[in-house]
């Protein structure tokens, strides 16, 4: 399956490592770009868009990040006509009902809590794959 780029926005290095450890084997054809917070991610996207480059096929976003958190990033992306089409999936440590509601109502496609057990990444990979398959 042709994948494209997954933009992974996460500030915690351990989480980055563990997530990548689990997703890369499950999505071997996808490229991963990691940005450390919402602001960095947004700036990256805006640059790519401005340069008419191919945008990421999917965004995998944490909520708790410095400078700009995941929910704010979601709002900004949805508000930007150039970026709004990019599917956003949340992968967060927050089990907060309010965050989940805000994310899904804000346009996120899926909302996952960071799993304890590696086996749970199967489900996450399946969900991402379902979104990537729409990528022409």
């Amino acid at each position, binding site marked *: 399956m042709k994948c494209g780029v997954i933009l992974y926005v996460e500030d915690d290095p351990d989480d980055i490592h563990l997530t990548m450890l689990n997703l890369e084997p499950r999505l071997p054809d996808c490229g991963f770009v990691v940005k450390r917070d919402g602001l960095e991610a947004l700036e990256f996207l805006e640059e790519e868009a401005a340069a008419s480059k191919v945008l990421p096929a999917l965004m995998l976003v944490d909520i708790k990040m410095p400078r700009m958190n995941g929910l704010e990033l979601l709002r900004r992306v949805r508000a930007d006509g150039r970026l709004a089409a990019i599917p956003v999936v949340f992968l967060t440590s927050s089990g907060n009902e309010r965050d989940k509601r805000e994310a899904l109502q804000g346009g996120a496609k899926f909302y996952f809590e960071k799993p*304890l057990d590696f086996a749970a990444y199967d489900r996450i990979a399946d969900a991402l794959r379902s979104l990537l398959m729409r990528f022409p």
Partner: protein
Amino acid sequence: MKKKTTNRGRRPASAHRVLKGRYSGRISGLVRGHHKAFRKGAGFFYQLVASLGDYSVFTMDAQGNISSWNSAAKAVFGFDEKEIIGRNFSNLFSEEDRNDGAPERELREAEKLGRAVDETWHIRKDGGKFWAAGAVFPLFDTTGALRGFTKIAQDLTPSKIKEDAAHSTSALVGMITDAIPALIGYIDPNQRYVFHNLAYKSWLGGDTRDLRGRRMADVFGSEAYRAVKPYLERALAGERVSFEMELPFEGNLRWVHIDYVPDMDPKGFLRGLMSLVTDITAAKRSEAALRKSEAELILAKEELEKQVEQRTARLTQVNEELTSFTYSASHDLRAPLRKVEGFAQAIALHAGDALDDEAKGYLARIREATKSMHRLIEDMLRLAGVIQRDLSHVEVDLSGAAAEIFAELQNADPNRSVEIRVQPGLRVRGDPELLRIALQNLLNNAWKFTRLAKPPRIEFGMMRDGKTYFVRDNGVGFDMRFAGKIFAPFERLHRMEDFPGTGVGLAIVKRAIQRHGGRVWAQSKPGEGASFFFTLNEGLRS
């Protein structure tokens, strides 16, 4: 009439003859003179008769014309001696009696029988009637000839009796009123005392023997009088007044209750005034003391309430802080825990085959421990949530929730076969989240502790009382000694390897039930299963 003139100085009997018949009742100087001589001659007896108190005594001639008249007779009948002498005694009778011939009968009876008694109306000079009892005795001369009569009469009119009775009554009244420590007095319209009881002496001191005739103002002094004057004046105008006041009595201040009762005659004029003065100093003092202690009590109560409020506020604050802390701490512990678990798995993935069995074992135990910690954190978060959450109040289908939970349990453990019985139609008003959490914990426990039962049986339903729910299992049970402990957080009764658990589950159940105003309790016998009971909405909801 026989004429035997044997006595000296006596008028000849012929004088009597002149007097009888149609001459009876005519007073002539001759008759008067005759009677005068009679009286002088019997001076001693006249004196005797005069001394007979209120018995009327008079004499008559044989025809009933009055020949002598004592002072009592005058007092009773109203006639002067001068007026009545020579007149017939029938004038003293009522017209009816006269027409009836009663006077004549009396005389005849007296002459015949030696006495005649009557009790009848008699007539006074002013025409007034009064009731009298009388006795008539005949007077014979030495020859046995009728000379005349004596009549003795006693006034029996009610007023007379009343007067006598009144005299004895007033003595009784005096005795009674003297025994009463309150001032009882009666003043006339000029505010002079007509009557007072003995208490006046002790209240006013000194030689207060007889205040009758003295003015009230003088008796009580100007200061006290001035104070009661407005009330007194109202009473003297015919109004019954009652009031309380502090007044000086011989230098002592007393709190008194005073009643002035006007005594009005039927025409509406004031006859006098009754005054009743009761000392209420003691009562007033206790009243004041009572009010004071009441005020103090109220103050103390307010103070106490304020303190309770303050302490409750502090406790509430502390509770909130603790819960909030629990929540934050639990939340923040999740991240590092996840990493420990993650990297332990990473090691297994990365170096899996390179590890020997012992190392693999250690890894497995790390993973178990982290899972355990994770469950504990989740439970603590849930407990904090149960405490903090705002309650909703909707209809909750408990039967449905139980069925769902059982389905989830079966799903997670498909190889287990458990006999499940859920009573249908159990609905209640409450918070769906909290109730679900409570049921979940109870059913989870039942599921867990029936692991060794053959066959495992779990039942959820309602008792016959219509308000107590139960979750019953035939699992491992517990010793009732710990029945109270098990609802406290972190309390466990079984070994981790036998039945894992955080020890927080039942604390969550208890909290959730309590927030619905209910109670939860348990019954069990080791090896014979356990029953958990709970009620909802019994009272205070928080």
